[in-house]
């Protein structure tokens, strides 16, 4: 039920983000979702792409530091309070969200949120127990 995200270390200077997207674009890789965490010195670009292996390889070839991380994609009812219900369910189990960001595409009537937890398995179980729909990676990559 986990989704593979690739993370890229980029220095906080002009053109680096453009360089990453250019490399991916030229390799024919489609970005499905992204988030950028930034500090004054560096940023961490997190991506869900349609071809993780290829993205990983082309970026490494160009000298970027890349890592893979397991994240969880959850369908969120697209109405006020939809996200809140999910977060409350997690909080009841004392599960901490490291970070989260929204997916570009919708899944039917619902939005999709990507979560990074410190305890991934426990989080997935809590979500399923509460009747939330956790999306499989293969489904997401091709959405």
């Amino acid at each position, binding site marked *: 039920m986990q989704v593979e*995200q690739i*993370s890229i*270390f*980029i*220095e906080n200077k002009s053109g*680096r983000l453009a360089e990453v997207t250019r490399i991916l674009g030229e390799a024919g890789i489609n970005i499905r979702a992204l988030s950028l*965490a930034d*500090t004054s*010195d*560096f940023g*961490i670009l*997190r991506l869900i792409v349609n071809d993780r292996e290829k993205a990983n390889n082309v970026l490494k070839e160009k*000298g*970027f*530091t*890349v*890592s893979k*991380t397991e994240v969880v994609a959850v369908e969120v009812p697209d109405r006020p309070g939809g996200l809140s219900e999910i977060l409350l369910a997690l909080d009841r189990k004392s599960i901490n969200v*490291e*970070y989260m960001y929204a997916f570009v595409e919708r899944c039917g009537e619902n939005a999709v949120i990507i979560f*990074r937890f410190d305890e991934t398995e426990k989080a997935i179980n809590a979500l399923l127990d509460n009747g939330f729909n956790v999306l499989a990676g293969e489904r997401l990559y091709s959405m």
Partner: protein
Amino acid sequence: MFNEEFETLPRPALEALQLKRLKAMVERVYSRVPFYRQSLDKAGIKPEQVTSLADLQRLPFTCKQDMRDSYPYGLFAAKMEDIVRIHASSGTTGKPTVVGYTRKDIDTWSELMARSFVAAGAHKGDIIHNSYGYGLFTGGLGAHYGAEKLGASVIPMSGGNTKKQIMIMKDFGSTVLTCTPSYSLYMAEAAREEGIDFKELNLRVGIFGAEPWSDSMRSEIEAKLNLSAIDIYGLSEIMGPGVAIECQEAKQGLHIWEDHFIPEIIDPDSGAVLPPGVKGELVITTITKEGIPLLRYRTRDITSITYEPCVCGRTHARISRMSGRSDDMLIIRGVNVFPSQIESILMGIEGVEPHYLLIVDRKENLDILEVQVEVDENIFSDEVKHLQALSHTIEKEIKDLLGITCKVRLVEPKTIMRSEGKAKRVIDNRTIDS
């Protein structure tokens, strides 16, 4: 050993030989080199007044500036027609320093380099891959002649063209590598990119010098290149590589070939000679050189000396590995900082590569030290807090050990310039203004 008789000479015999040679050397420079006649006269010493090794302390120092002032041949003590080789050190400021060798000097150098190869664990039959630069720099030809004297097969690679170096190392079956320690790691990185594992190569011994390096860097090199890494010391003013070498048996300090050089450790400020075990500036007197003999040459290298017997059986004193140079020492907010100290701290933190750069600035009359560290897969995390924790750990360790506050900046791999010779570790922007 290459020359067991001389390498294991009992200390009394060694010191008697030193005194005999020192006397002859002082005579030689006094009669042949106007600079030394003047400086000895000024110090009020005549050559015949040198009657014991303790008298060495009364002789004046020679500094790099004296060599620059005598540019190019002013300090030569042999006729130009007897000089068979000329080398020069890279002049980082102004003119280079020029050295000349007679036939006998080349023979001596070759022997000392051959002794050094054997001490490091090399022998006849080895294939020595020599990546020290050939040219005015003494490294390439110095190691080359020593390797031939030893009877090994020497590959005169010189520096640069790293891909080809690795191909030749692999195809030619090189067993011994000579280069700078930073270049060895550069090679390891390049080999990895080529998909070549050093474990598949025949390399057994690496002899690294021409820049200070730490014991933690040694572990790194030994692991990555799968060989025994030996520290070698030398400088063109004194001879070139092979002035001192670690023995493979102990790897505890570098034996300095005392039948040709007399080492002293001095306080760089007062010039006073320091006792064994105390860190100070290394001063060397050459006692057999003909081309350009130097009395009490100030190397600016910081080390200490021990005369304790070594497990290898050599009786020659050992100098500790260089902890820096008195002239590349940074003074940051009044604190003395050697780049090698920061390197040791970085290498002690798990996963951190020795690719770093120190940038010193002065803002509002305050020195600012920035330490740039490359982020590779071992330390990268998708979470900001982990990377920030790493920066803070490095900052704290530097603060704890050196007492200075610095800023750690994480940078992308290979943003710090790799040199194929000496690594550039420090950018001191403060000197631009002054």
